């Protein structure tokens, strides 16, 4: 199927993606569409295929079949048009924060002294990390590392930002600050954001549409209110257990089964 003919305006279009490791199939024909400027959340239980999907979209793994179309192109990824925020930031530990943020520009051939430094400093200030220019990643807190990594992801002015569990390992306050920062950046830069997260607060704050994966298949694709009103029981339960701590204990038969 030609995705562009049915959804010409999508920033990201994934169609019938099948992927796995060795002979183990992880994704069983998953489709996803992200519109320009939209914040799309991928969620689901552990091992449902969220990370595999992200890795396939980013070109880190080769899909078995299906199509991935990013910003109108289904050829090799144009690295300058996407930004990625990895779970632990993935800053290069041997480089300072400033050098990390300049890195994508240096790879594009911009000299580190001069233009690259100017742009990198501006991005770091935007994520409120201007003071950390000369620090090494090992000297930063988890939240600071994520913000520095966010500055690096945005330094090439990408059109789509992929975030892999940005709140993982952060306290609720820092997590909320990061969510607000993401929203602020999306609004000011007009980015599309693909967010993989389990954090209900983040989903509430950020998600415009969610895609719920279960055992490598799409269980729900729609808005959060729709998921809560008309979603499958598993999806409703996912939110219910996280909303009400009293429901944290498994309450349904399928949850206690091995």
């Amino acid at each position, binding site marked *: 199927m030609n995705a562009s003919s049915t959804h010409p305006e999508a920033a990201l279009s994934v169609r019938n993606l099948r992927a796995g490791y060795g002979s183990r199939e992880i994704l069983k024909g998953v489709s996803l569409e992200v519109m320009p400027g939209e914040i799309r959340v991928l969620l689901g239980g552990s091992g449902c295929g969220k990370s595999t999907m992200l*890795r396939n979209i*980013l*070109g*880190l793994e080769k899909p078995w079949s299906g199509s991935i179309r990013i910003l109108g192109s289904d050829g090799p*990824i144009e*690295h*300058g048009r*996407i930004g*990625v925020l*990895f*779970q*632990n930031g*993935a*800053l*290069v*530990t*041997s*480089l300072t924060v400033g*050098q990390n943020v300049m*890195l*994508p520009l*240096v*790879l*594009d*051939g911009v000299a*580190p002294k001069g233009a690259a430094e100017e742009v990198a400093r501006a991005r770091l200030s935007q994520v409120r990390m201007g003071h950390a220019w000369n620090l090494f990643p090992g000297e930063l807190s988890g939240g600071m590392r994520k913000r520095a*990594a966010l500055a690096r992801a945005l330094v090439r002015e990408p059109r789509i930002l992929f975030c892999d569990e940005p709140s993982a390992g952060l306290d609720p306050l820092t997590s909320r600050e990061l969510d607000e920062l993401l929203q602020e950046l999306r609004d000011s830069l007009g980015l599309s954001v693909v967010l993989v997260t389990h954090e209900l607060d983040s989903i509430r704050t950020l998600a415009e549409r969610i895609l719920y994966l279960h055992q490598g298949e799409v269980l729900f694709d729609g808005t959060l209110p729709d998921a809560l009103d008309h979603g499958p029981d598993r999806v409703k339960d996912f939110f219910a257990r996280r909303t009400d701590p009293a429901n944290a204990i498994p309450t349904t038969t399928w949850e206690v089964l091995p």
Partner: protein
Amino acid sequence: MGETAWDTANRWVTAARFAVTMLVGLVRVSTGSRRTWPMATWRQLHELGTTALPVVLLLTGLIGLTLALLMGQQLAQYGASIHLATLMGVAFIREVGPLLTAVILAGRSGSAITAELASMKVQEEVDALRTMGADEASFLVAPRLLALVLSTPILALLASICGILAGLVIAMVQLGISSDTYFQVLLEAVEAKDILFLWLKSAVFASIIAFLACRIGLATHGGSDAVGRATTKTVVAGIFWTVIADCIFALVLYL
């Protein structure tokens, strides 16, 4: 049986592919078609070469002293003490210097490369570089390969000189040979081609160590325990293949 043969063949094919990727990365960085971090090779030269100098010199010096002491006693029994210079020159320039340097570097620099790359791999730094469009062969492997290939022959030469000087100490103190005589005999025994072979052997050993260290490091999966296992594997494989290569050199050059 068939499965094992297939796995082995697969491993060799993957290794050959990595070797080609490594060379392509080196060419790309050298020609400027792909970029690495500015001064990355200098940083690696310092970390893999300069900082290894004290331990290389100390160990080769001590081994030189020990060998000279043992050989000096034997030679003195036959009235051939003067040939200590010949033996020390030939042994250190042709064999002990390059091999011992390579073994030390396999343990020190090889493990350091693997530990760094494996940590980068498990912490998704390598994935992050890929998503930025960096070619890992150019960005990560080429500076390390270049640094080792450039620094190892220099270290091996200095190590050989250190071992020979240790021999001089024994020659002067224990055997009563003057330094002039020692160097005169030494220069008669050692030829220019020996220095050339030292350089060549050391460069090959360095390539083997860099290849194994980078390949094992970048193939690491899992957590921090995987980093430890990868490091051990590099040291063992590095020493093993260096000795194999040394044996082949000996057969080809001196048989």
